[in-house]
């Protein structure tokens, strides 16, 4: 028998969900529908009228080689950031899990970076990575001119990837540690009795058992690296040098707000949104069904 609570007053449930509904409508559905509308029209830079353009905006983007460059760069960026951040977080979590002393302290210490707003972190990292004065810049003292993200595109992209990974480590760490601690100790002990050394146990026993968490974090990290990189890039490189750190989300901002190409930017937003929706779909449909360990 299913037990359910009923409201006598038909209006009350709507009233109760109204605040949340209002937020979602105002900050998600309304802008999205605007973007969708703009994506299919040609919007005037200074406002005042528009004309229906059909798929032209999308076709223009798809024929733009520069845009595809951005897509490839974004994919590369997302993969590197996700891999680096998850690998670092997992390594830390494994070490913390092995020696349980002070686990609580580590939990809170490692999650702090996640609480730092990306632009704030970006400003801090600008000083750290500054070629003329920063910590990393010190290697220019040994090999003059070897480090300068302001003119070397690869260095700039690498720098952003490192920063973005760093911001995500805390979040990933918490999930990894929780997952590792969910595994009964006796399984690891049985592995030890079976003769497996710690690294072997980690690869054969722990990693497969936290696979659901790994999949979950993989998707979350990919989505985050597609959408959350704006704050870092805007404060650290502004997409430069020569567009080498221009990822999809930054190009939307640049084309829309700097280039005043509202329609093109709107179309790009729709594409990025579809990408994120697709990843979320994978998360729900494919990943959650594969979780069968117990």
């Amino acid at each position, binding site marked *: 028998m299913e037990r359910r609570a009923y409201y006598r007053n038909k209006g009350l449930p709507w009233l109760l969900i109204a605040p949340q509904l209002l937020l979602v409508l105002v900050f998600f559905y309304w802008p999205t529908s605007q973007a969708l509308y703009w994506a299919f029209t040609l919007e005037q830079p200074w406002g005042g009228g528009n004309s229906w353009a059909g798929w032209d905006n999308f076709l223009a983007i798809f024929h733009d080689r520069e845009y595809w460059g951005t897509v490839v760069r974004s994919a590369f960026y997302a993969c590197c950031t996700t891999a680096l951040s998850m690998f670092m977080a997992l390594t830390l979590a494994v070490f913390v899990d092995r020696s349980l002393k002070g686990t609580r302290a580590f939990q809170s210490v490692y999650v702090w970076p996640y609480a730092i707003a990306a632009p704030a972190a970006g400003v801090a990292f600008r000083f750290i990575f500054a070629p003329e004065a920063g910590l990393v810049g010190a290697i220019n003292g040994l090999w003059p001119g070897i480090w300068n993200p302001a003119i070397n595109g690869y260095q700039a992209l690498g720098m952003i990837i490192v920063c973005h990974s760093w911001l995500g480590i805390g979040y990933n760490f918490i999930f990894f540690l929780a997952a590792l601690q969910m595994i009964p100790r*006796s399984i690891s002990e049985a592995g030890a009795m079976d003769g497996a050394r710690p690294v072997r146990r980690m690869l054969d026993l722990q990693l497969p058992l936290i696979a659901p968490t790994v999949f979950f974090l993989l998707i979350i990290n990919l989505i985050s690296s597609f959408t959350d990189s704006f704050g870092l890039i805007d404060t650290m490189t502004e997409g430069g040098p020569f567009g080498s750190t221009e990822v999809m989300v930054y190009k939307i901002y640049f084309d829309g707000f700097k280039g005043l190409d509202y329609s093109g930017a709107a179309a790009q937003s729709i594409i990025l949104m579809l990408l994120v929706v697709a990843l979320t779909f994978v998360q729900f449909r494919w990943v959650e069904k594969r979780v069968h360990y117990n």
Partner: protein
Amino acid sequence: MTTITFKSVKKRYKKNPVVHGVDAQIESGEFVVILGPSGCGKSTLLRMIAGLEEISDGEILIGDTVVNKLEPRERGCAMVFQNYALYPHMSVRKNIGYALKVAGMPKPEREARVLKVAQSVSLEGYLDRLPGELSGGQRQRVAMARAMVREPKVFLFDEPFSNLDAKLRVAMRSEVRRLHRDLGVTSVFVTHDQTEAMTLADRLIIMNGGRVEQIGRPSDVYHNPASRFVADFIGSPAMNLIEGEFDAKGVFNHGKGGQLRAEGGMALAGRKVALGIRPEAIRRAGAGSNGAIAAVVDYVEELGASRLIYADASGSRLIVVDTGTGPLPGGTKLHFTFAEQDVHLFAEDGRRIETHASAARMAAHAEQPINA
């Protein structure tokens, strides 16, 4: 063949001592059960043999090797865990074969070994299942097969049957017995279930509060408990323990004016002792029989083959195993007798007091040595 030797083994968690110095020797091929209430340190002792817990003080030797500093994989022990600790993502085949895979055994050889071991615990039909698809008893057998496949020098069992129902427990018990008979591997089995312990053990190590109370064969421990704790812990229903004091004439005074005669009492005059007598050593007697104790029935527990009479003997609780039939309503007055040699005396500190009668009993129950 492999012996296990404990030399004043101690375990502390931070400042907190949990095992207070255990000295014992387990013979090669012997099946030893460590028995005790929960929290007595029995599992800790087992895990120290396995290498899963550090030894704070003292030494453990497996064979002639001090294993204190050795990793679990270097000790040659296999362990069956309480919650099975199977690898949930691996099939039964992979679970059993994991140790061999880690050891680098080539696949064909490994498969053959796994199959052979699986057959010996009748699991050959389940090799491709995941542990989650097995019943409790099957999982338990996988855990045992996984321990057996490595052909270890020592088997360790950490309360392996505590998650099984009563019927399966009995079945698994005989399976373990059979395996031990076939393989003859030195085995240490930890449990808090005395029936399990009595039926499985060549020898028992009875622990309480981090100390060894008694080491001996099940019948020795039952018939000659070395301490009041053992007397109370072993046997079901538990031994009757009547608190009292001997007077100068050697008469045991207990409860509210209860009196008993017991041999050797004179020597103990003035000492507070506990007089122990097994419920099955007490018999009903006719009224007015020589030396009979009078008691009033509180209630009767019917067990089928026999029944337990809970009676009050001048303020002391008496449990008696009775094979008689016929109604025994509460309030019935009965008389009981018992042989003097069935009496156990325990001093105030819980240690056993030897008397002539108990020495005679010990001689009567002495058996041939196990390894003769």
